[in-house]
């Protein structure tokens, strides 16, 4: 079936359409009228989305056929290797694309949500400088993201991986005249490099130990030999996790994501909430075979995820910038996904990835609408009472808040529940992780309703604001995402899990019961309700309470508001020494001293030689002629002497020959 399908699936269309959009808008965009830029910018992701739908539909038909005919489903469905890429000795890497259940789900999220956010951006960015530049970057991001998702081997994935990092850097620093934005872009890029080192080392180890980078081949080799447990597989998995932690903003590399909020809000929604930051989760799910062979690495993933979830949630409690609250919330939710991966519930993690893409994109878009409506205000303390002024924004935001808080029947409930349930089933350690997850759910609910109350309820606190509702191009995507945030979870983890099972493995041993699952769901919803009530109490009933609490626990509040001073800690422990080392040793000793000194030395020798030889060039014709004659005489003399020598020694030479 694979051979048959490769011919007309045209997987390459999916990344290539956004790339065409990037080229068109990137090269010609400045000269084109705005409506043309908009058309190109919207057609590219729409075309990619339709291509994904088309591919999915074709595959679905054929999978069903194949299923009915021989009762087996090929996994992956399609693997195309159109371009032999690298051929060095035993290493063969193709620029291959893979379509399976996992990549199909991711593609639908990336292009679907991506398209919606493109539409939203048309309204949001309409008055901004660099309209075409913005859309060309956004299309570039979609190109690399689809390459990342479609990648059939680690190296192609790495191309996409670095590419989305580039797009992220460009878009965070979109307002590059602002120093904070340019710095944030650099920070994101540099912190991601640390993770990328992990990814690279993992790839080297894969080549060294498996001789291949293709995911399916690695899986096959691991499957053939059960002796691969532990050891090198653990190291590879941990290196991959380091890469994932960089890209998906997990402890200890999460610090770039809050700063990334310097970019335009739709960018935060698309790249720093819905898609790019979930690439780490996707990568772990894609390479899950390695993790499955290393319980230790899985444990690390789970612990990092849970720790990040609760860590970021506590910081989010005390932030006043609406986008920063959402940024820490994103980190926290990504932590949930890693927790899901860590307990080998990959389908649950991907499920949460999907619902999170819906509601977190919506949260950011709604926040963007609020910021847009308030003329750039991002401080929650200066908002309030917006529900009357921005009704559509308010209702869509409400759907997203309920979804992320985990209320039934909103999308977040189903996915978060699936992860927590899977964690609970993992023995006593799993119960600890489950407990951490539940506490995080409480905190999540609290800070989300805090945001909700502060922004939309009560009385307006800002001076002289005339909030206005956003244009339809912004509200439309928000409404669609709101519907998805409400209904996106109804697929249910059972159906979703069995759909993904060929790609990421079955959901794990079901030792629990429906009874237990119901109780755990009840706990989750109860906790969410508790968070809501607390937020209600704090920010609606007794609005003096937060301030009094902050006064009562000045240290604790400072710690949270200062984000645990992790940035300051890294600054003092890593950045400062590194800068000092660079300044003193690299700049003064190596650059100025050794390299500069060498350059001066060579230059000095050349200048000295020049000063001496310069005297030859007297400009006097007769001196040149004399040197010429002297040279000719010297050559003649040399020939003469040589001839004499040959004449003198030839007899001896001949004698020697004769003697032998």
């Amino acid at each position, binding site marked *: 079936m694979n051979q048959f399908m490769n011919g007309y699936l045209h997987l390459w269309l999916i990344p290539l359409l956004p790339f065409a959009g990037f080229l068109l808008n990137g090269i010609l965009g400045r000269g084109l009228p705005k409506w043309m830029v908009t058309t190109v910018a919207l057609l590219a992701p729409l075309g990619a989305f339709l291509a994904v739908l088309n591919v999915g539909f074709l595959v679905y038909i054929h999978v069903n056929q194949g299923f009915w005919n021989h009762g087996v489903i090929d996994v992956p469905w399609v693997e195309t290797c159109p371009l032999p890429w690298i051929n060095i000795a035993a290493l063969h890497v193709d620029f291959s694309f893979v379509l399976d259940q996992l990549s199909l789900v991711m593609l639908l999220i990336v292009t679907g949500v991506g398209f919606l956010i493109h539409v939203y951006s048309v309204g949001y960015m309409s008055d901004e400088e660099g309209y075409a530049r913005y859309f060309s970057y956004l299309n570039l991001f979609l190109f690399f993201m689809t390459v990342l998702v479609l990648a059939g081997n680690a190296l192609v994935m790495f191309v996409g991986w670095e590419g989305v990092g580039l797009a992220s850097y460009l878009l965070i620093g979109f307002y590059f005249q602002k120093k904070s934005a340019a710095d944030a872009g650099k920070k994101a890029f540099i912190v991601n490099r640390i993770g990328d080192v992990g990814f690279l080392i993992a790839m080297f180890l894969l080549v060294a130990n498996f001789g291949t980078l293709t995911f399916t081949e690695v899986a096959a080799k691991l499957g053939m030999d059960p002796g691969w447990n532990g050891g090198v597989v653990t190291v590879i998995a941990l290196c991959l996790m380091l890469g994932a932690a960089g890209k998906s903003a997990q402890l200890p590399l999460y610090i770039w994501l809050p700063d990334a909020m310097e970019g335009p809000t739709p960018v935060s929604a698309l790249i720093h909430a819905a898609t790019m930051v979930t690439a780490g989760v996707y990568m772990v799910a894609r390479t899950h075979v390695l993790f499955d062979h290393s319980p230790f690495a899985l444990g690390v993933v789970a612990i990092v995820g849970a720790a990040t979830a609760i860590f970021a949630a506590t910081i989010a409690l005390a932030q006043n910038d609406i986008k920063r609250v959402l940024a820490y919330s994103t980190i926290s939710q990504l932590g949930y996904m890693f927790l899901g991966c860590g307990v080998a519930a990959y389908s649950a993690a991907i499920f949460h990835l999907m619902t999170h893409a819906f509601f977190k994109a919506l949260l950011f878009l709604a926040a963007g609408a609020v910021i847009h409506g308030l003329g750039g205000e991002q401080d929650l303390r200066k908002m309030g009472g917006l529900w009357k002024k921005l009704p559509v924004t308010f209702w869509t935001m409400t759907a997203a808040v309920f979804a992320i808080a985990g209320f039934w029947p909103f999308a977040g409930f189903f996915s978060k529940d699936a992860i927590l349930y899977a964690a609970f089933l993992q023995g006593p350690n799993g119960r600890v992780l489950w407990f951490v997850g539940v506490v995080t759910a409480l905190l999540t609910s609290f800070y989300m309703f805090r945001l909700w109350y502060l922004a939309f309820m009560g009385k307006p606190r800002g001076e002289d604001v005339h909030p206005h509702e956003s244009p339809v191009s912004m509200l439309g995507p928000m409404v669609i995402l709101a519907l998805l945030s409400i209904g996106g979870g109804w697929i249910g983890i059972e159906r979703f899990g069995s759909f993904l099972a060929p790609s990421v493995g079955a959901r794990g041993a079901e030792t629990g019961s429906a009874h237990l699952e119901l109780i755990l769901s009840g706990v989750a919803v109860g906790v969410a309700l508790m968070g809501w009530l607390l937020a209600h109490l704090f920010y609606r009933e007794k609005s003096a309470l937060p301030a009094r609490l902050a006064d009562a626990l000045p240290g604790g509040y400072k710690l949270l508001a200062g984000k645990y001073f992790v940035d300051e800690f890294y600054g003092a422990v890593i950045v400062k020494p590194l800068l000092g080392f660079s300044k003193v040793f690299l700049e003064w000793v190596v650059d100025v001293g050794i390299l500069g000194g060498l350059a001066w030395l060579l230059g000095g020798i050349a200048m000295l030689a020049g000063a001496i030889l310069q005297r030859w*060039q*007297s*400009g*006097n*014709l007769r001196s040149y002629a004399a040197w010429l*004659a002297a040279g000719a005489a010297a050559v003649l003399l040399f020939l003469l002497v040589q001839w004499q020598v040959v004449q003198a020694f030839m007899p001896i030479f001949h004698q020697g020959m004769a003697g032998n």
Partner: protein
Amino acid sequence: MSSFFAQEVPLTWYLLLSAALFSLGVIGFLIKRNLITVFMSIELMLNGVNLSFVTFAQQWHAVKGQIFVFFVMMVAAAEAAVGLAIIIAVFRARATLAVDRIDLMKL
């Protein structure tokens, strides 16, 4: 007497004459100050070489040497035309033909 004139001129004589002409040219080129004299010395050198060419051509009955001489004469004629033009231009510009004073090529 007739035997003297009937005798062939030996090769060495031709070569000695050729070397003498060439050396005179070199010496003139090196010691003369007047640009025109220097120029004439160059011609002398060329003709010294020409003489050795024809000598060998005659000696070994090879026509190549003769052809070379024609080439050299042709180039020498062209060179004379260009060189004299340059000398006139230099004289007009500097009112002198003393080689030592035409040293603008100096750094």
